[in-house]
Every structure is written in C-alpha cells, then in structure tokens.
C-alpha cells in the first residue's frame, strides 16, 4: 500500500516539472515555433528560484525570480528567432548550451560553489495540507501534502486548455501556427503571437524550474534539469500539443521513472530499469502512430 502511494506520489512529482515545461512548449507548438529551449529554461528557472529564495528568504520571490530568469531566455529566443529570423533549432540548441554554462558560472561566482548549492536558508515552496481530505484513506494521502506547485501545474493544464481553445488569444495563437499569412493579413502580426507564446513558455518553464529546485528537492545542482526539457518536447509532439494529452504523457513518464527505480529491487540491472521511461515513450509513440494511421486511412 505504502509503496503504491509512494509510486503515485512519485509519479505526480516526477510529472510536475515535465508537465509545466511541456505546457509552455504547447504554446510555442501551437504558434508554430520549433522550440527546444525548454531544457535551458527549466535549468535557468531552477537556478534563479534558489537565488531568490536564498537571499530573500521568501519562496515566492524565488518563484518570481525563476520566472524572470526563464523569461530572459525567452527574450533572447525572441530576439534571435522572431526578430532576426534565425533558425529556431539553432537558437534552441544555443540557448540550452548557454543555460548550462551560465548557471554553472553564476553558481561559482555567486555562491562560490561548484556542483551543488544546498543550504537550510533556501526556503522551499510549501506543501498544501488538506485537513478534510487527509482523513480519507489512500486518496487523502495523495491529495494532501502535495507541494503547491503540483496544484499550480494542474491549474495550468486547465488554464492552458482554456486559453488555447476558448479565447481570442488562443484563436490567434493557433492561427499563427496554422497559417501565419492569414493572421498577418487579418491585421494581427503573427510574429507578435510567436513572441507571446515564447513568453508563456518562459513563465511556465520558470514555474517548472522552481519546482525542481524549491519543490521536490531544495537545492540547485548543475544541470539539474537532467533532460526533462527534452522529455517535455517528446510529450508535446506525441499528443500534438493537446494540454490534456500532455498531462497524461507526463504522468506516464513520471510513473515509469518511479517504476524503473522500483524494478531494481527485482533483479533487473539498474541500467535497464533506467531505460523504462524512454521505452515507455516509444511504446506511447507506437500507439499514437497507429492511431494516426487509422484516422488517416479512415
């Protein structure tokens, strides 16, 4: 029982940063921006979250700073890819490289450490206890005690869904991806929508980064995004950007990651259990492709 609850909680916390980053990527996906900079934005967000929280003692300021940090990368992305029309893939790769170098450098410069900065003065994002739900067996143990950012991620999923499919902003955003010429000639510059989508991505990746460094664990480590930005990209592409689908894939990924660790207790070499999430992604892709083929032929 405890293991199962642990697995579910692990799934939720594993999914949260991926979900937040992927939701951010969904905006750019719909706006027709090929954005692979989520990895760098997560990392930058994680760094600035710790920076803000450590110096001010307020996790909220940490989160805000994380958003600003990730937004800074968004601005560079906008400058190069939207204004100067540089190839988006190149811009993304360069920004990821930049984020690793810059956060490592700042870590050394500001905190005079390399590798990990962990300090009791870093205020974590609080966990939300639900006194009512707590008494329900099983469900209560999952619902209560989740870190605030988990709920934020859930909310962000719904909000993103609403924004993209129900609002003026969303109609224009998707138009920028489907046919920018149409949007341009209807008087809304498509480049503006692309820029806005990148800003949205920055905000969400900032939140995701702050979850990494102030939520699940309470420290900054070099390269602590550890490929989650790439997984979020795979999640987006797998479900064509649909926010609900993204939530599902993120959970699947969080689950298989935890499952991989758990399987180690059962005589599978750790390198193979570590592959589980990636193999799960491939399997998801298989079913997705099969479904698409069916739809196409129908």
């Amino acid at each position, binding site marked *: 029982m405890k293991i199962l609850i642990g697995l579910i909680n692990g799934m939720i916390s594993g999914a949260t940063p991926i979900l937040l980053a992927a939701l951010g990527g969904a905006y750019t996906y719909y706006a027709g921006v090929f954005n692979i900079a989520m990895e760098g934005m997560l990392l930058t967000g994680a760094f600035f979250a710790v920076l803000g929280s450590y110096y001010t003692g307020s996790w909220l300021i940490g989160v805000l700073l994380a958003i600003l940090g990730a937004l800074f990368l968004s601005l560079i992305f906008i400058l190069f890819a939207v204004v*100067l029309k540089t190839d988006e893939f190149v811009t993304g790769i360069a920004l990821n490289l930049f984020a*690793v170098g810059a956060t490592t450098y700042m870590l050394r410069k500001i905190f005079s450490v390399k590798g990990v900065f962990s300090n009791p003065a870093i205020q974590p994002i609080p966990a939300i206890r639900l006194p009512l739900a707590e008494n329900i067996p099983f469900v209560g143990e999952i619902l209560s005690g989740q870190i605030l950012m988990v709920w934020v991620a859930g909310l962000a999923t719904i909000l993103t869904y609403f924004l993209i499919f129900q609002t003026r902003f969303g109609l224009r955003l998707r138009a920028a991806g489907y046919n920018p010429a149409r949007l341009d000639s209807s008087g809304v510059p498509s480049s503006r929508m692309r820029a806005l989508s990148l800003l949205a991505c920055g905000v969400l990746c900032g939140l995701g980064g702050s979850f990494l460094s102030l939520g699940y664990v309470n420290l900054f480590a070099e390269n602590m995004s550890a490929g989650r930005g790439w997984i979020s990209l795979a999640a987006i592409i797998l479900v064509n950007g649909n926010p609900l689908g993204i939530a599902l894939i993120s959970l699947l990924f969080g689950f298989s990651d935890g499952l991989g660790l758990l399987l180690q207790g059962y005589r599978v070499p750790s390198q*193979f259990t570590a*592959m589980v999430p*990636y193999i799960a992604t491939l399997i998801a892709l298989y079913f997705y*492709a099969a479904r698409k083929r069916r739809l196409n032929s129908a």
Partner: protein
Amino acid sequence: MRQKILNALIGIVVALLLGAVLLLLQGYDPLATYEALFRYSLFGYYPFATTLRNAVPLVLPGLSAAIAFASGVVNLGQPGQLVMGALFATVGGLYLDLPPALMIPVLALLSMLGGLLWAGVAALLRRFFDMSEFIVTLMLNMIADFFTAWAITEPFKDPAAFSPMTPQINPNGWLPKWGEFNTMILFMFAAVILAWFVFNRWKAGYEWRITGQNALFARLGGCNINRNFMAVMLMTGALAGLAGGLVVMGGPHRFIRGLGANYAWDGVMIAIVANNGLIATFLYGLFFSAIQTGALGMELITSVPNEISQVLQAVLVLVIVASREYLNTFVEQRAARRRAREART
C-alpha cells in the same frame, strides 16, 4: 561563394567581439584569454594535432546530421549511434586478433555497423510503424547510453579497473600515430571526401538532395523515397558510428565511461550552423574543435573557468547563424535599393 565565406568570417568576428565584451564584464582580459585559447589549439605542433584529433568526433556526426537534414531525414540519433559504434569496435577489438592492416579496417567497419544498426532500428520503426524518427532517435540516444553503460559494467567490464570500462582492445587495432598526429584524422578526411562525393556526385545523392527539398516532387519523378530514406538513415548512422570506433581505436583503446561526451550533439549543432553544407560542416567542426581544445589552455593560463567557453560557444552559434541570415538580406536589400535608384533616374 565568396559572399558565403565573408559572411561566415564576419559572423565569427562579431561573435568573438561579443565574447570579449562578456569576458571584460566578468573582469577577465579578453586578449590574453583569446591568446591562450588559440595558443592551446592552433599555434603549435601538439595543439594543432590535438585540435585535428578532437575534431574527429565532431565532424563525423556533423556530416551525418548534415546529410540527414539535407535529405529530409530527421536523424538526431548521432549520440546513440556514436556510442553503439564505439561499443561494436571495442567488442571486436577484444575478441578479434588480426594483423593491424586487417584489424583496423575491420574494427572501423564494425563501428560503422554498430551505428548503422542502431540507426536501422529507428529507420524500421519509421518505415513499418510510421513512428517519427525525430522522437525515436532521441529516445534511442538515452537507451544506447544506458545500454553501453551496462555493457561496460557487466559483460565486458575490465575486472581490474576501478570504474566501469572494458579492458584494452588488441593493440593490433590501435590506430598508429605519426608523431603527434593520430591517424584517425585520415579517416575523417576520407569520410569528408567520400561523403561529399556520394552526396554531390552519386545519383543516389542527387535523389536524396531533391527529396530533402521536395519529397513529393522526387517521388513523382520516380525516386524511391522509402529506399532512399533507409539508405540515408543507415549511411548517416554508419558515419556517426565510425566516430565512436575511431575514438576508441585512437584514444583510450577501450570503452570507458564518458567516451561519447557531448561530441555528437555538438556535431549536430555544427551541421546546423553550417547550414547542412558538407564542407562548411568540416570547417566549422575544426573551428569548434579549436575552441573546445583551447579552452583547456584558457583555464590553465588565465584561469577563466571552462563554463565560460560553453557560454562563448553558445554566443558563437547564435551570432554566426543570425549574422549569416541578416547579412544575406542586408546584401540583397542594398542591391535592391541600388536597382530602385537606377530605375527612378
């Protein structure tokens, strides 16, 4: 052509200037830093030889990516293909015993086979299940990483070693050195020339290029799209795999942890910076190798930390590509304005 070279040079210069500003802001002396950077990468027998050698695992995956992208194939699996190639060559080197003249080519071929098979997995999944090679190759990179890690900690481990690694391969499979020059660079030159030749002179290369530009047109023109996709996937996989084999045969002579580092991924980046041009990929590969190699000297002499060289590389990538595109439009617009002025008079 001259314009292209000029644009590249301007981009590099602007990027280096920007980098200098960054260094100044952080309180380092940019001149001394660049001096150290290039002294440890270009000016000198050993530095130059090292730069050439370090270029191998950048240029080969770069060529692989350039050919794939230019053919409309999104093979991003170079990192995985590289380590699989390295593993194949290593295992071959552990169990085979042939005279060097045979052993070296056999191991090189084995490494190509490793990369080819790993790319082949992605190709087959795409071909028969319609699974986008973009995601598949990315996932296979991770899987290859763990798989090779397992291979060197379990079945092929060196029991005498303190960290996961295989024993050394048979010395007959070691690439000889000429002075400081490692003969692995010969393989690189040969690969560049061959790849260029195949891509630009072969009939298949012609079809790949056209397919990359307009797949429907190529298909209607009678090109066998599926076969070409397979061929490109396998060939680019083999190129990346070869890089892995050469790294083993010319470097530590065994598969050790961290063998692949970030090379292949940097190679992909280089291919894009080079706009998928093969010769340009080669040149940029040398250039970035020089930066990476020189970073060591930079660290040693001016104690600029090596993460600064990472930032510098990011700036280089962005600025080179942005300025190339900016300069192209700038040049064209200037010509247009001149033309308009002529028309008015």
